[in-house]
Every structure is written in C-alpha cells, then in structure tokens.
C-alpha cells in the first residue's frame, strides 16, 4: 500500500526522465494513475474528476524544478493541490459574539457523533469555556445515557428530556441561559440522508437551536457514499464544518476529500481513538499524504533539505532508495536527524513506520547511548556488524559505558531496520506483517 503512487509515477517517468518535459500525453497517463490511486483511497469518482482537472491545470503550467525528478515534481503538485483542497482554518469553531455559541452534530448512524460531542466538550472546557452537553438523540436505545456518562466524565452539565428532539433543543437553550453556559453542544440521532422524515426532524432541531456551527460527523472508513451524505446534509441543514472520526485505523481516508469537494467547508477536527482525549485539529498535510499512501515524505524531504547539506541529502536519498547503509551512515544520520528536531516528530513523518512505533515515547537521551556504542566500534565493525563477536561486544560495551545486551540490542535492531529500509525504499512495498523496530533502545 505504501508508496503506491510513487511507484506508479516512477514507472511512468522512468521512460520520461531523459526527455525532462511533460507532454499532454504524459499528463493523461499521470492523471490515470492518480485516478486509480484515489479510487483505492476511497475518494468518490466525482470528486476525483474535479480534483484531477485542477491538478492537470497546475501541472501543465509548472516549471520543472532542477532539484526534483519529474516524478517527484508531479507528486509535489498533486500533494500540494490535495493539501490546498483539504485545507482551510482548522480546529476553530465559529464563536458567537452573543453567547451561547451553539454547536450541532449530525451524521449517519454510528459515525461517532456522541463521542465527538463528549470530546468537544472536554476540549472547550480545557480552553476555559463552559459547555453544556445536550442529548437530542431520542432514537437509539441508551443514546441519552451514553452522553450523560460522557458529560459526567468530562465534568460538564448535561441536559435532555423525554419529549421530541426540537423540544429538547428548546429546553436546552433555556437551561444554558439559566446556568450561564457559553457553549451548547447538541448531539442528534444518526440518520440516513434519504430518510425524509428524520431529515425534517433535524431541520426542526436546527430551527430551534440555531447553531453557529452545524457539523457533519463522518467516519474515515466511509467509501464512495461520503459524497451523497455530505451533499444531502449540506442541502438539508447547511453545514459549517466537518469532524472526521476514527482516523486511528488504517483506512486511507479518501472520504475527507470527497466531503471537502462537496461541502467546501473546513474539516475542523479529527477523532483519533475511543477515549475523550483522542481528538485533535485536522491536519490537511498529514491527510493528503495518507490519501496518497506515502507517509509525510514530502515534509520529511523539506525538513531534510533545511537540516542537511546537499551532499548529505543525496546520500540520504540513496540510502532511502537502496537501503544500503551501514552503522557509520547511521551515525551520520543520527547526527543530522538531531538537527531536524525531536526524533518523535521525525519518525512520525516516515512512510511505512508502524503506528505503534510512531506512538511510542522516544527519549532523545537514548540516542546518546546509541551514538556512544557506535563510536566505540571500529570502522570495519561499523561497515560489517556481522563480525562483532562476543569479545568485541565486551570491548564495545566497556568503551561506551553500556552493557553487552545494549550492544546486542542495537545490532539486532539495526539489522531489522536495514531490512525495513530495504522494504520501504521508494517504490518497493514493505514486507507484509513485519513490524521492524528502529535501532533505538526502548522501541
């Protein structure tokens, strides 16, 4: 899955590289590949057409930069256009000058509305606001109870009543005034966009609550249907933004692009797990790379360009490409990487690195230990770690102030990392099911 698009582009441009300029025919071929990649990522066909039209426009006028191969060039154009499409201000609700600010959450059944209501309340409370959570889903068994429990966990007041959804909204506005709450978050029942009666009901709730933020809650695993859902909800109640849930899985998340193409309003937040703190502002750049299936490799290239001198960049590229690097290269890498910022951030941007690794707490101080171990090795040992036998291990451990099992671990993990690098070198798919570890102790 990783690098699918890069691989395809490399295929097209392998022939083209010598010619150096994009012809309209090349562009058609490129467009075809982009279409396939976006279909695999669950972007709706209609959204793909609109998107590709814009990319073609950009690409045909583009100057070919010397520093990039044609493949990289086109990937950059596609990526930038995708970021621009997905972009817009994120993580910010429209606040009403006259409190309370009202937020209404709507969407299909099971998309994550109630959970998002709880998460939003938690976030706003942490920002110093005083939210009221309102349970207006009188449809699903125990939906009100679910939100009541979440309200308790977040420690914000909760309101609901056994009546009709619009009446709940009315009562909630009064309750907010009585308690002096400055944000009202209304959770509504899930509904299919083709259910006319329930869409009417939703309009009824909106007309009473008059939300400043009507947000569509969309599951990141949604397929082609995302466009229909977004369009219908937008037509029915007028959307101001989107919350994309369940991005903690491995869905490519093309629904984000589908919805954005249709609604045009910002994707404000992303749900990253089942717990209330698993909620963050939506990152268009991360999502773009994810949809294209290539990790945040562009940001990595950019960061690398800032931190590395030119020769180092070439070397790094060769390393990524071929996975042929030894411990000495690795030491050089470590020292360069340290200039790029905390390791956690850098690893997060690498394509193909398992989420468990990305999420693991990486202590930059551990790097010092790795550096010390490599420093204590001879050049020959760095080039060919296989020769490091028992007595050499003892010597290295003593020299670096570590233990032989530290040395062992580093060598073992380095070997796995070499395999991983080989697996993820641009264009080569990683070995399935393999979870290599980075040669950093504690990972």
């Amino acid at each position, binding site marked *: 899955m990783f690098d699918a698009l890069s691989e395809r582009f490399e295929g097209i441009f392998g022939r083209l590289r010598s010619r150096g300029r994009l012809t309209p025919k090349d562009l058609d071929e490129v467009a075809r590949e982009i279409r396939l990649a976006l279909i695999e990522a669950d972007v709706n*066909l209609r959204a793909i057409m609109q998107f590709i039209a814009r990319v073609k426009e950009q690409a045909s006028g583009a100057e070919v930069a010397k520093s990039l191969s044609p493949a990289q060039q086109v990937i950059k154009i596609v990526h930038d256009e995708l970021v621009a499409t997905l972009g817009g201000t994120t993580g910010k609700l429209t606040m009403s000058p006259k409190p309370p600010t009202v937020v209404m959450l709507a969407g299909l059944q099971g998309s994550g509305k109630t959970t998002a209501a709880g998460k939003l309340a938690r976030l706003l409370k942490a920002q110093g606001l005083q939210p009221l959570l309102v349970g207006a889903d009188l*449809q699903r*068994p*125990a939906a009100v109870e*679910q939100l009541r429990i979440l309200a308790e966990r977040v420690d914000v007041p909760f309101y609901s009543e056994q009546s009709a959804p619009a009446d709940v909204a009315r009562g909630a506005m009064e309750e907010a005034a009585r308690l002096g709450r400055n944000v009202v978050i209304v959770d509504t029942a899930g509904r*299919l966009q083709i259910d006319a009666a329930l869409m009417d009901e939703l309009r009824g709730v909106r007309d009473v609550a008059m939300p400043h933020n009507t947000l569509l809650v969309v599951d990141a695993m*949604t*397929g082609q249907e995302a466009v229909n859902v977004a369009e219908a909800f937008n037509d029915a109640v007028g959307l101001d933004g989107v919350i994309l849930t369940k991005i903690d899985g491995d869905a490519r998340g093309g629904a984000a692009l589908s919805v954005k193409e249709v609604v045009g309003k910002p994707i404000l937040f992303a749900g990253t797990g089942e717990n209330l703190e698993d909620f963050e502002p939506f990152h268009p750049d991360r999502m773009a790379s994810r949809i294209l299936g290539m990790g945040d490799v562009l940001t990595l290239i950019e960061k690398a360009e800032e931190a590395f001198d030119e020769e180092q960049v070439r070397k790094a590229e060769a390393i990524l490409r071929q996975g042929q690097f030894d411990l000495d290269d690795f030491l050089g890498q470590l020292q360069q990487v340290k200039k790029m910022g905390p390791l956690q951030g850098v690893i997060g941007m690498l394509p193909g690195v398992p989420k468990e690794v990305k999420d693991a707490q990486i202590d930059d101080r551990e790097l010092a230990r790795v550096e010390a171990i490599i420093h204590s090795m001879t050049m020959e040992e760095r080039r060919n770690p296989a020769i490091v036998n028992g007595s050499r291990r003892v010597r290295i451990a003593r020299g670096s102030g570590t233990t032989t099992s530290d040395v062992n671990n580093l060598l073992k993990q380095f070997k796995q990392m070499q395999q991983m690098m080989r697996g993820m070198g641009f264009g080569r798919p990683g070995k399935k099911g393999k979870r290599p570890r980075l040669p950093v102790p504690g990972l």
Partner: protein
Amino acid sequence: MRGIAGRAVDEETWEELEEALILADVGLPTTGRLLDAVRARAAAEKVGDTDSVVAILREEIAALLDGSTGRDLVVEPGEPNVWLFVGVNGVGKTTTIGKLAAQQSDAGRSVVLAAADTFRAAAAEQLQLWGERVGAAVVRGQEGADPGSVIYDAMAAASGRSADLVLVDTAGRLHTKVNLMEELKKLRRIVDRTAGACKEVLLVIDATTGQNGLAQARQFAEAVDVTGIALTKLDGTAKGGIVLAIQGELGIPVKIVGVGEGVDDLMAFDPAEFAAALFE
C-alpha cells in the same frame, strides 16, 4: 446505468459498468476481475447489446457470492450454541443482536444476550433495552469489567436455564489495534472452552464502508475465524460492494443483512437481489 439500456456495447459501456461497480465500493481488483469475466463471456456468447452484458454481469456477481457454503446461522438442538459478534466501532453489532434475538425468540428458541462490550459508555444499557424489547435475558457486568467473565457468566446462565442460544456482543475495535485483537482472541478462547459451542463468529460490516472493509475482514478472520458477514445499513443508498471483495478474496459469505433500526429490519442475504441493487 439507466441511460445505457438497449445500446450497442462499446468502450463507454465498459467504462460505465466500471464506474457503477466502483461507486458501489466493489474496489478496483474485484471490479477488474468481474469485468474481465464478463468481457470473455460476452465475446464467447457473441452478445452485443448492453442489456445482455448487464445481465451477464449480474450473473457473475451473484455467482461470485453464491460460491460460498450455506448462509444459515447454525443452531444445534440440545447443544450449547454461541454466536459471537465482532467488528469495528459503530457498525451495528448491538442492534443486529437485538434484531436476531427477536427473530430467534420468535422461532421458539430461548436466547441469552451477553453484554461483553464493557468499554463503551452505556453499551450494556443499550443491549439491556434490546433484551427488554424482545424478551431475552441479558447478562452484564460492571462498566470496565472483564468482558471474558461476562461471557463466562452468560454461558453458565444459559446452561443453567437450558437456553438454546447465547448472542455475545463485543466492544467495537479497529482491526489495527493489536491489544484489542488479542483480547478478542481471548474472548473466543473462553467460548471455546466449551468444545463446539461457538457456532458462528459474525463480522458486522457497515454498507457505507469503503476499501477498508477488506482489511477489517482479513484481520478479524485471522484473529477469530469469522464464519460470516452481517451487512448492515443497506437501507441507505450505499451498496456494500466491498462484500464482493471479501467473498472473492477471503471466501467469507454474507449471511444476514440489516435494513433499518427497527426490530424487524433484518433479512437473509439474497445474492441475486444484491447484484440487482448494485445497478439501481
């Protein structure tokens, strides 16, 4: 699709068929395989009009889905029978159990529901309400309790009252979460302590799911040996085409279909009907 009826088949026809399948979330590989088969048959049978080609495509789809073994959910009289429901978050596990409990009670079986989703807020209450609605006993633990002990208790309760069937509701989990998938394996092992009790492991798939559905099926099947798919939310306009890829690549059949939030909104799966609906 409507516009192409009666026309002679040309490249545009094939493109439109491809689009219809992709819009139904069938996915590129399965779409390609299906259309290759249809092209071959159309050539061999010297068929040249779109109506016939669409008919062939429907047949191919139905045949792909039919290639499976039976769709009946297994209950053996006089034996412990457990059906385990698994899937990602929010797909309709609890609701499907509620509907099935009603159906099975109506068929004269006594049913025990095990509320082994002890994680999501009010998940047990939700199942409890379904139990009350359909007249099935519900065994539950405290929130945050060990789901394994809930299953154990439910199976003990079922054997104590000689109930026919235990339906086990589990917490939604993304197939990528290693720990949660390990937990699920453990739950299955608890059921398996009573040899032969686990008659069905049903993976619930939401019809709006895109290509990720295949990854879900692969991971859940690997973890707990899924016996069938419950395809929910087919009452919307989403087609649920990913089940074609699941059947084609993993050989897991769709067994039941959810078509609404009500207690009666559950149907047996009909491949021909499903194939026809893909082109509506």
